[in-house]
């Protein structure tokens, strides 16, 4: 008797997904931290599991929702899952961290992560299906013309760069900027390496040359991540991996995770090539501007070799991506793969724009701390006068209680009833809130808090749009 099994693609129900995400994130490695920063432990990442049971990862986020808390939670999860494929060791040796090492790389941790990864990817990157649409009959010649047209674009300073230049505290803003690059630059080219395993002809070998450059030809001092560590150290930042985990914006991880997403899912190989060409080509001018910006903010003590190196080498990498990878792979695989290459090119543009806008808004939020604190009074008055009826959360927390960084999907008002709270809006950015004071918390802006009195009683009013409370 023949047996014909029916193949069913792997998919979790909403309830299974919620349970699996919570199961993964309840690992002791991922619980809330009592400090703002991690201390030379690359396995500790704060995933706020206590909130996950309230999130629905089954639906695709839209473009307008991509900075909501669900996205931040998903990107933190994905960064953790992707990075369990990579090797990290503490700088100062193991000691008690050996147990964390074993937990992080355990089969259990990795299997649980793999179970939720496809749904998290669909949740986080699915909006690109609507944002980018490829049509028509693409040929090798039209693809080449399309890609080479990037050389005709006039590079402009990004919103992020302008935000740093115009910030009330450019050094703080520039450090926050460098922190955003850590998930990408500290393990630079690791997502790319996912594509050079296997056996597929000359393109594989040419791609390996790009990786050799990124890895500094086996000389550790010239490895690009080493150069980036030097940049961090030169401006007073720590270099132990994910020391600043709580200050990563969701869009910064979105950008970095995009390449892991494409590299992990090999059916997206051609999309990876399109995104690679875009990033390698545009990095030349970006790195030139970045080196100048960091020098203007920090002076000559800023080590910008990481960026000046890329001004040089990415001139070659952009050309290599087109002439040695993309066009040969079209010759080898046929023109049917071109729409995917075009899609990757455009998708990365979308994500870069999301990240640029997000970072600029975060700097405005950090700089606006005193303004947001001053807004408490009229907004609080509006609530008391009944202009807005908002859900209220009453909270009592003891000294030292640290609300790990997060964001909200609408504006909120934090009102201190008694005690003292240190409200943190980003790296080195905070306001002290005493009884009767508070702050407006803007939609989608990363923040956290720590209690600095024996006890603090406070309220969170979910007002949606704080302007509705103003007369």
């Amino acid at each position: 008797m023949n047996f014909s099994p029916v193949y069913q693609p792997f998919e979790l129900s909403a309830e299974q997904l919620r349970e699996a995400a919570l199961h993964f994130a309840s690992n002791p490695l991922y619980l809330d931290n009592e400090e703002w920063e991690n201390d030379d432990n690359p396995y500790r990442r704060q995933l706020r599991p206590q909130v996950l049971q309230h999130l629905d990862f089954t639906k695709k986020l839209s473009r307008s929702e991509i900075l909501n808390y669900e996205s931040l939670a998903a990107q933190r999860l994905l960064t953790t899952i992707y990075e369990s494929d990579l090797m990290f060791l503490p700088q100062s040796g193991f000691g008690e961290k050996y147990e964390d090492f074993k937990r992080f790389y355990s089969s259990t941790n990795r299997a649980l992560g793999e179970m939720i990864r496809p749904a998290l990817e669909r949740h986080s990157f699915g909006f690109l299906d609507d944002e980018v649409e490829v049509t028509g009959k693409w040929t090798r010649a039209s693809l080449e013309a399309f890609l080479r047209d990037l050389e005709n674009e006039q590079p402009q300073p990004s919103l992020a760069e302008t935000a740093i230049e115009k910030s009330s505290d450019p050094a703080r803003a520039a450090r926050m900027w460098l922190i955003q690059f850590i998930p990408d630059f500290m393990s630079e080219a690791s997502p790319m390496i996912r594509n050079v395993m296997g056996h597929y002809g000359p393109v594989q070998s040419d791609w390996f040359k790009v990786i050799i450059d990124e890895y500094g030809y086996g000389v550790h001092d010239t490895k690009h991540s080493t150069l980036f560590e030097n940049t961090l150290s030169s401006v007073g930042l720590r270099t132990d991996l994910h020391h600043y985990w709580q200050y990563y914006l969701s869009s910064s991880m979105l950008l970095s995770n995009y390449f892991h997403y494409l590299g992990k899912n090999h059916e997206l190989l051609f999309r990876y090539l399109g995104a690679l060409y875009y990033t390698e080509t545009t990095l030349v001018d970006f790195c030139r501007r970045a080196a100048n910006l960091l020098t203007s903010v920090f002076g000559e003590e800023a080590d910008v070799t990481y960026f000046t190196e890329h001004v040089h080498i990415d001139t070659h990498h952009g050309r290599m991506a087109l002439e040695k990878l993309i066009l040969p792979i079209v010759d080898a695989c046929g023109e049917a793969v071109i729409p995917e290459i075009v899609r990757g090119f455009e998708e990365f543009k979308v994500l870069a724009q999301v990240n640029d806008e997000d970072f600029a808004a975060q700097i405005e939020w950090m700089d606006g701390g005193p303004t947001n604190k001053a807004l408490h009074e009229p907004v609080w008055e509006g609530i008391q006068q009944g202009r807005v009826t908002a859900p209220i959360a009453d909270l009592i927390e003891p000294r030292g209680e640290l609300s790990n960084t997060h964001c909200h999907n609408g504006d909120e008002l934090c009102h201190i009833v008694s005690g003292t709270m240190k409200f943190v809006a980003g790296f080195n950015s905070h306001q002290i809130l005493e009884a009767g004071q508070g702050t407006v918390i803007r939609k989608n802006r990363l923040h956290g808090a720590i209690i600095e009195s024996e006890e603090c009683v406070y309220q969170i009013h979910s007002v949606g749009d704080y302007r509705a409370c103003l007369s």
Partner: protein
Amino acid sequence: MLVLTFAVSGAGNCVEVGGAPFVYARTTLGSFVLPARCSHRGGPLHLARVEPGRARLICPWHEQATSVKRLARTGIPAVRRGEVVTAVFADATPDNWSTGHLPLSPDLDGTSVSV
């Protein structure tokens, strides 16, 4: 080859290349760069409706039918990113184009596309 970027809708949604106008059409059957003039007698194809139950555009002048599948699969190569579209015109030169505006029928302007 001429690579042009233009708006999906509103001002600047029409690009004229070598005297021929093109728009970007978003239909329930797919999206594509659409020659704004009908190949029959030059009617306003940008105001065409989709024939009910069939994947064809019907020109408002003489009811000439144009295959949507052909436009999407074998038409001008293009990519939409948000509200802008970039298209590659094979037989065009850099000094022979301009942008303008043409209204689109409800079947072509994306309002019928659920996203």
